[in-house]
């Protein structure tokens, strides 16, 4: 089990320029294989690739950098595949469970138990158990977005629920939300870069979260936009990112349609259930006025009741398990789109500055400022991160939907199996009666 350096190209936002190694610079001290983790905001991370080469920022013209970049991409692909395959090498396990209600004078809220098991040296202890509320998860997400703007952060379930429409403390709501929070945390913990984020560490281990830094006033979107200096004209997206954007739009649309269909089915099933219940009672009622037919009629009523129960279970399952996961993916798509937009802005800034610099160069021969190179690096990092995340997201999406849809099929199969056995027991009952009658006739 390798407590390895993060795979893929790791980068954090505010890396001071001094620490970036230029390919033509003098030999440097070897970088540590793992990132240093401090609890400061935007902690420094120095990262190294699995093959040992330091992270390089380079100008496009450099041949060696081109070569390195190609290597990078090979590694990226391998890493994307590897990540999917080698879940056995996971060294950080998180779970969200055990919801509890807290009542104080000011407010009522729910906390969840967050349990962690890990062998990573970034953590002081191998196990942690803390209680967190939704606010805390939200804080974590914002911090992750701020400190890792080039990465896709998994979505949280909806923050606001309309009071009076949804009961925030009902068992179903809490259960659904908890599952979504669990999923969120697991996705973060499985991410090669995000899982090493110091905020995650704090979230998982600290007794009390010190959230005072920049929480209340900043919205998710606002903070992330602040990253990039605004005002640059947007440039056309490179083809591969265009394709991503189009895919996301269409996919989001299709998920919306599936959501609507599922809701419609639930509604139709509920109306069917109402009629079916009445149907069963008519048979019971009829049984009351019959002699010979009493048992068969009661049997039919009972089979119908079995079907009603099975149908209730099916509908409930679709509401509780299927729809929330579907909706969460729509949020996930929105997150991904946001990351694409941030990338666009990053590209806009770079190309804007480049244009300005080129013009100035033409005028008075000043060389390209370091700033421009910095921007270029940023764009390239961003692109690489995004592509890596995209691959990971695609493969997770495939797994998630496979699971979701086979689950739906299973529940439907289950429903029909229950109904079938209900009717089969009726036939057995009636058959027994027939043989009973026959033997009494012959006697």
């Amino acid at each position, binding site marked *: 089990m390798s407590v390895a350096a993060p795979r893929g190209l790791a980068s954090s936002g505010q890396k001071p320029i001094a620490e970036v190694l230029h390919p033509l610079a003098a030999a440097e001290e070897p970088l540590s294989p793992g990132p240093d983790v401090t609890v400061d905001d935007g902690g420094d991370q120095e990262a190294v690739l699995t093959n040992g080469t330091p992270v390089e920022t380079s100008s496009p013209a450099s041949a060696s950098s081109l070569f390195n970049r190609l290597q990078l991409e090979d590694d990226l692909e391998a890493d994307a595949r590897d990540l999917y395959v080698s879940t056995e090498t996971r060294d950080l396990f998180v779970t969200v469970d055990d919801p509890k209600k807290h009542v104080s004078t000011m407010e009522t809220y729910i906390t969840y138990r967050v349990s962690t098991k890990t062998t990573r040296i970034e953590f002081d202890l191998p196990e942690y158990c803390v209680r967190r509320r939704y606010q805390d998860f939200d804080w974590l997400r914002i911090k992750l977005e701020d400190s890792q703007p080039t990465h896709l952060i998994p979505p949280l379930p909806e923050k606001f629920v309309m009071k009076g429409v949804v009961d925030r403390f009902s068992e179903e709501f809490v259960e659904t939300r908890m599952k979504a929070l669990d999923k969120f945390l697991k996705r973060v913990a499985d991410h090669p870069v995000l899982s090493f984020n110091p905020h995650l560490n704090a979230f998982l281990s600290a007794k009390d979260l010190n959230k005072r830094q920049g929480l209340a006033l900043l919205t998710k979107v606002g903070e992330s936009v602040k990253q990039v200096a605004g005002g640059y004209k947007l440039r056309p997206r490179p083809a591969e990112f265009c394709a991503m954007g189009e895919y996301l739009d269409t996919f989001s649309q299709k998920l919306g349609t599936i959501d609507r269909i599922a809701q419609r089915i639930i509604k139709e099933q509920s109306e069917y259930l109402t009629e079916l219940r009445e149907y069963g009672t008519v048979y019971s009622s009829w049984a009351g006025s019959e002699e010979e*037919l009493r048992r068969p009629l009661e049997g039919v009523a009972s089979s119908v009741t079995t079907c009603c129960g099975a149908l209730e279970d099916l509908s409930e399952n679709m509401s509780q398990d299927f729809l929330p996961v579907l909706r969460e993916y729509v949020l996930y798509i929105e997150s991904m789109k946001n990351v694409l937009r941030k990338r666009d802005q990053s590209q806009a800034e770079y190309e804007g500055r480049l244009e300005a610099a080129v013009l100035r160069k033409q005028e008075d021969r000043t060389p390209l400022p370091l700033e421009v190179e910095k921007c270029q690096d940023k764009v390239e990092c961003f692109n690489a991160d995004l592509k890596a995340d995209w691959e990971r997201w695609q493969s997770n999406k495939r797994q998630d939907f496979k699971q979701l849809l086979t689950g739906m099929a299973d529940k439907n199969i289950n429903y*029909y199996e229950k109904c079938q056995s209900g009717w089969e027991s009726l036939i057995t009952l009636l058959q027994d009666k027939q043989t009973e009658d026959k033997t009494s006739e012959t006697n």
Partner: protein
Amino acid sequence: MMAESGSSEVAVIGNVDLTSTELENNIINTVMVERGTALLRRMEINVAEAEKRTGKNTVNMQETYTVYLIETRPAETIAEGGTPAAPDTLWRRYSEFELFRNYLLVTYPHIIIPPLPEKRAEFVWHKLSADNLDPDFVERRRVGLENFLLRVASHPVLSDDEMFLRFLTDEKRWKEAVLETGFQDKVDSRLKSLSAMFRVKNPDKQFTALKHYSDDLNTIISQLLRVRAKVADRLYGVYKVHGNYGRVFSEWSAIEKEMGDGLQSAGHHMDTYAASIDDILEEEEHYADQLKEYLFYTDAVRSVCRKQDLIQYELEMAVQDLSTKKQQKEELTSGTVRIFSLKGMTTKLFGQESQEQRESKLEALDLSIHEGEEAVNEKNRECKEFLQTAWGDIERFREQKDNDLREALISYAIMQISMCKKGIQVWSNAKECFNKM
């Protein structure tokens, strides 16, 4: 209830190749044939086909109607390799069946006359056509008419009726013959029946109970049919909405690489699922028809009860009449007026009659009393006979009803199981596709 044991029961449960519709028909027809009336022993009866005809009706307007082909052939065992004899055939329309049934109602008032299939489609769920010319409706009606003929043919009393035989075999002159029986004159007026129902002093307890049971059965089956139609409607909706999954999976598969094939095939299965409901509900209509037959049977039971009321009432009236006459005689002989009558009063006021007058009156009364006594005896006999024959048929009917409805419930359960199996199949197929995503 079936002469064969064991093997045919296994066939009922295990054999799902035959649709339960056919199975059910076979069971009932087998039972009726095995019940063995003389008629059925020598003749096979089918309503084989239906055809549309157009012609001019009584008010000389063009109309379209359906005719049904009645086939009869001798019921002899066919030698191996031999072909069945060609059947005798004739065409009849629904109104002729109705005429024939009315004849039976009047001629055998103590028998519960089998009902005809409904004239117009009722208790339809919305997708089902209420059009009399709809081929599905016509087909179900064909089955219902065959059922009617077999019920009559298997009845110990009705099967011997001459008009029945002519209905089956004499295309042209049957109608004339049945009208010549003058049955239409013997129809009891509705008013007479109704008033009898209300004025009977000593209603027969058993018949009263039967009346109530019949009313209850009518109510409950109507309710059941109504709710069943609503259930069918809703179930249709559930299945059809799943068809939308087919479309969206197909569209989604277009933007996926590895997931595309799995999604696309799963979508096809969803389409199959949505389409499967049509056949399922069509088959369920047969169950509804079986219920309807007994719904209409309750009307026939009520007819018998009403006739019994009428006869009872007439008996009571005859008894009352006789008693009044006897009283009058007593008064005349004793000279006391116990019963107020105008004649009595005028006699008192305006003087007695002569001895001669009294004598002739007495004679007339005696005659009248004698006639009255004969009338009472007659009515008594009629009443007893009716009770006996009717009750025999009622017992027969009860047993038939219990057996038929029980079989209907079994076949309904089989239908439901078949529907569940289809559901499991489709979703299993879809699951396989999802697994390949």
